[in-house]
């Protein structure tokens, strides 16, 4: 199968899976089987497509409106790997929800249908070379995921859904303005309506586009895609949405969706950085945005006792870390930022799925009512520990690699004040996390325990995610490093 066919399939398969599940009978076994089959097929095709661009090739489809380059491939990897493992877990999680009477089989059918539609919208945004279609894809991710988040029919769920769609829509309106402006500014130079919408053409002509216009465009893009990515101060939708939705949807949103928004921002970062506006301009904005985000998130993190809300603030903090990496810039800073995208994706997917286990065990999200997890459910406790260790940047876990590279490169670049602030932010996160970890894991349980360890079939996808965290923290995966290096070259216009 050639790469073009793979790319067509990559876009069509999730839609087919979504439609098929929608028309299936309300039988949970049948629904979950098709859900897994659809996810596996999408993931395999995704990984096959990624394997074709590791060496830096770029392939186009649909009259160059969609494409796969090494940069996009980094994010397709997340959809393929994190997406599949979360999907596998979601089958068990939704079954528990049905058994408890929290959801009906009809609700799970809607959930699985939307899950694949959501994967389609994310794939659409990642593969889009046309900048307007990229925006359409990002906006569509909100529309396709809002009922996955607000699937429970309750006050909190309704408030969550409302906040999610309204705040993200306002933010993305600015991103649409950035898109229109970039097209107009590009059209002035390129003089072809089709090509002026293509990111690859805009990159090729970035030096000719008016730098003042590009500066304004980047501010609009930062507000717009930054809102969707959870960067402060427009992050306020994120703690509610990530904490209120079912664990698998939180894992998908945090593990993949936020990164798709970051990719859109990186595409603008690259165009503006390679123009006469220069990388210094975009880097300074990203450093400020990153540090403000890290500090706001770490402050709120200290006060959290709700385990899902704690991880939601972590998502914000780590989006700040990625922004900080983009702020450092250069080959190492960008490499670290992209590495962090994967490291955080698998870590946060594990973290949110583990909270799904913890809620089954204690029947609450409040960590002050937990305790003794290591005795009640040792595998869940270890998985929780791995997620926390990675999130705080303990050596040997994936996130350590990117955070270490960022600190090292900041010092090399003479960003002394910035790196001190960055380290202080990380220390606050470290303290908050380990105190919370101790609260839930050790001592005696402070509430009635509803069940013991979850079955291995539920924990297997989580063990897979934990293994990836350690593998990427310890080993140098050559194809992955080559892919990242090519992605960095694309951003730097090399």
């Amino acid at each position, binding site marked *: 199968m050639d790469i073009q066919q793979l790319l067509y399939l990559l876009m069509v398969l999730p839609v087919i899976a979504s439609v098929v599940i929608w028309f299936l009978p309300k039988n949970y076994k049948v629904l979950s089987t098709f859900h897994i089959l659809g996810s596996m097929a999408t993931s395999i095709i995704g990984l096959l497509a990624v394997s074709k661009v590791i060496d830096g090739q770029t392939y186009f489809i649909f009259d160059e409106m969609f494409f796969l380059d090494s940069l996009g491939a980094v994010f397709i990897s997340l959809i393929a790997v994190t997406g599949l493992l979360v999907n596998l877990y979601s089958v068990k999680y939704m079954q528990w929800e049905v058994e408890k009477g929290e959801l009906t089989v009809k609700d799970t059918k809607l959930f699985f249908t939307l899950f694949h539609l959501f994967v389609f919208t994310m794939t659409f945004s990642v593969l889009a070379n046309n900048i307007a279609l990229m925006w359409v894809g990002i906006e569509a991710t909100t529309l396709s995921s809002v009922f996955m988040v607000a699937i429970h029919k309750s*006050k909190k769920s309704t408030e*969550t859904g409302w906040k999610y769609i*309204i705040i993200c829509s306002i933010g993305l309106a600015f991103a649409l303005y950035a898109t*229109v402006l970039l097209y107009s500014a590009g059209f002035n130079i390129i003089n072809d309506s089709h090509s002026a919408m293509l990111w690859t053409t805009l990159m090729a002509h970035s030096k000719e586009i008016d730098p003042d216009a590009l500066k304004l465009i980047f501010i609009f893009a930062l507000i717009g895609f930054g809102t969707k990515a959870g960067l402060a101060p427009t992050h306020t939708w994120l*703690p509610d949405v990530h904490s209120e939705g079912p664990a698998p949807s939180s894992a998908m949103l945090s593990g993949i969706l936020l990164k798709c928004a970051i990719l859109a921002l990186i595409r603008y970062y690259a165009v503006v950085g390679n123009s006469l506006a220069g990388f210094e301009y975009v880097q300074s904005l990203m450093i400020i945005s990153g540090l403000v985000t890290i500090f706001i998130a770490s402050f709120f993190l200290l006060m959290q006792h709700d385990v899902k809300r704690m991880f939601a603030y972590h998502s914000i903090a780590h989006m700040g870390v990625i922004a900080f990496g983009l702020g450092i810039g250069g080959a190492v800073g960008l490499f670290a930022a992209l590495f962090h995208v994967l490291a955080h994706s698998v870590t946060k997917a594990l973290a949110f799925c583990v909270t799904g286990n913890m809620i089954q065990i204690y029947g609450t999200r409040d960590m002050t009512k937990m305790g003794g997890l290591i005795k009640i459910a040792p595998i869940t406790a270890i998985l929780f520990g791995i997620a926390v260790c990675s999130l705080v940047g303990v050596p040997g876990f994936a996130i350590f690699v990117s955070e270490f590279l960022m600190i090292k490169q900041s010092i090399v670049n003479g960003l002394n004040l910035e790196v001190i602030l960055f380290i202080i932010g990380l220390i606050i996160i470290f303290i908050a996390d380990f105190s919370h970890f101790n609260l839930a894991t050790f001592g005696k349980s402070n509430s009635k325990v509803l069940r013991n360890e979850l079955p291995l079939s539920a924990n297997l996808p989580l063990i897979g995610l934990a293994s990836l965290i350690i593998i990427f923290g310890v080993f140098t995966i050559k194809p992955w490093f080559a892919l990242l290096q090519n992605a960095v070259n694309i951003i730097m216009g090399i």
Partner: protein
Amino acid sequence: MIDLLSILSIILIISSLCVFGIRNYKLATCAYSFQTFILVMIFIYLYKTYSADELGSWAIIAFFTKVIFVPVILLRLIKKLKVEHEDEPVLGFYVSPIVAIAFSLAIAMALYPIYLKFSLIKEHIPLIASITIFMIGIFGFVLRNSAIKQILAYCTFENGIHLSLALMAYNSPEIVELGILTDALFAVIITSIFASRFFKYFGSLDVSKATELKG
């Protein structure tokens, strides 16, 4: 002598302010329908004047989707919920429109020279109108607490972007216009469903009463 395009643009700004400020939901929705009708008129004017064929089809699509379809959805929602007037907004009924128009115009005046530089159609007042309407929509979210008024605010800023797109990028591939419009329509449908759910659970459309999630 002020030309027809400028008059239509000024009417567009005034009608946006009506959508923002009118307390009665039905009237505010009708004001939105009227505002979009003026937008369609502007598209037709530009289509005739600049021989921009794309804008002819944009006008037809916008008429059926935004002058008719979106208001029908909102009027049905209003009828279903049996609501008439919005509650007191942030800063009160009289101050909030003044704040919205003052800041929106100021921002529009500051930004429009950059827009003008790259615009395919270099018309000053419509460009100012497009940014002003966009900002009035944004202020609608900030200053109005009613869920229906917030949906109308979304529709308003979407009209602002639509006008910017018509002036600055009418020759962009049609799939772009189609994609953006589809997203906007789905957004209105989904927010309407949530407004209905919101009313069911909170007994009001006042989103400031939703305080279940804090911290």
